[in-house]
């Protein structure tokens, strides 16, 4: 029995697509993780700087003082650095380069100590936990979009489209491949990963190359209308 050999070129396209799916999946999970750590850093710092033990109230008005806002921001940054160390295993203190820890923080969380300080000094008591959460949801979403766009960058060939159709398990009768652009392939992969590696029909229907299922011909004859027309 002869074993069917795989074409090395098409196998490379398949690998590219599989790798992209993996990157998109990582980007999706890392958005949740990053937001959660940012939120956690705020809540931890708030417990230290804003919580009134006697009343049980978080007093945001304390952030009106610039020194409190700065101290709050410093603790947020420190907490993020601690998290970064735990996640990556990098000891930030080991680096002798000045500001290197900040660069790593920026690469991972998309913000550095200066940014965090400015955020708190500018917004002061307006930056409640709710406001901070909303801002960080937006921030991590932008980060995810950038990561997603980087992840799909090496999908550049029309041959990748065949692999994308295969991996997303889309019925080839439902799409007109000639109308498909590379960007559409990117979009399909992003949608596929967002939907827990499924391609929902309602998402597919939004794409310009979707071929709708033809409805069975032959309408019901409405006798009353026919009579009206005849009259």
């Amino acid at each position, binding site marked *: 029995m002869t074993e069917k050999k795989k074409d090395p070129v098409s196998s490379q396209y398949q690998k590219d697509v599989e790798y992209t799916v993996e990157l998109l999946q990582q980007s999706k999970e890392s958005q*949740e993780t990053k937001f959660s750590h940012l939120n956690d850093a705020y*809540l931890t710092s708030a417990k230290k700087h804003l919580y009134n033990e006697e009343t*049980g109230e*978080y007093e*945001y008005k304390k952030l009106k003082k610039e020194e409190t806002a700065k101290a709050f921001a410093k603790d947020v940054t420190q907490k993020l650095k601690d998290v970064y160390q*735990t996640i990556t295993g990098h000891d930030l203190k080991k680096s002798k380069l000045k500001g290197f820890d900040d660069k790593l923080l920026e690469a991972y969380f998309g913000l550095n100590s200066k940014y965090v300080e400015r955020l708190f000094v500018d917004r002061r008591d307006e930056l409640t*936990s*709710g406001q901070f959460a909303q801002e960080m949801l937006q921030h991590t979403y932008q980060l995810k979009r950038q990561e997603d766009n980087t992840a799909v960058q090496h999908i550049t060939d029309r041959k990748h489209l065949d692999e994308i159709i295969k991996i997303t398990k889309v019925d080839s009768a439902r799409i007109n491949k000639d109308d498909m652009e590379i960007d559409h392939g990117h979009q399909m992969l992003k949608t596929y990963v967002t939907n*827990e590696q499924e391609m929902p029909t309602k998402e597919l229907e939004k794409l310009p190359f979707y071929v709708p299922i033809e409805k069975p011909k032959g309408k019901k004859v409405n006798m009353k209308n026919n009579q009206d027309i005849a009259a």
Partner: protein
Amino acid sequence: MNKEEKAKEKAKLKSYRHNIEHAYLSALNDTIHKLNKKKEVVTFKHHEKEDKRGAFLVELKSQLEQHTTRTVNILGKNENTIAFQNNLIDAIMKSNTKIVHKHKHLINQRKLIPRILSLIESIEPEEE
């Protein structure tokens, strides 16, 4: 109630809402960390299973109750404020339940937080 007293009440309510937001975010954070085995990685993948969604909601409610034990003091603890807080917690949980069961494995913090925060903002205490 004169103008000054009204302004004070308004400020109290504003602080109360911010504290409830804080309590919700803390409860959500604690729930996520408790239910995710690895603390460094957060995922909602497991929410496809109904029992996991149920466990998430039960834990969230328990955390929310813990984080709101003292918030009612901000408004002045009495029958009315306790009833208001209980209604608010019920509304928060009802909305969470709806979102979690609707979106199943597509649930994430982006879907939950903005909706709950606007809910907290919209519910008014009943006039005495």
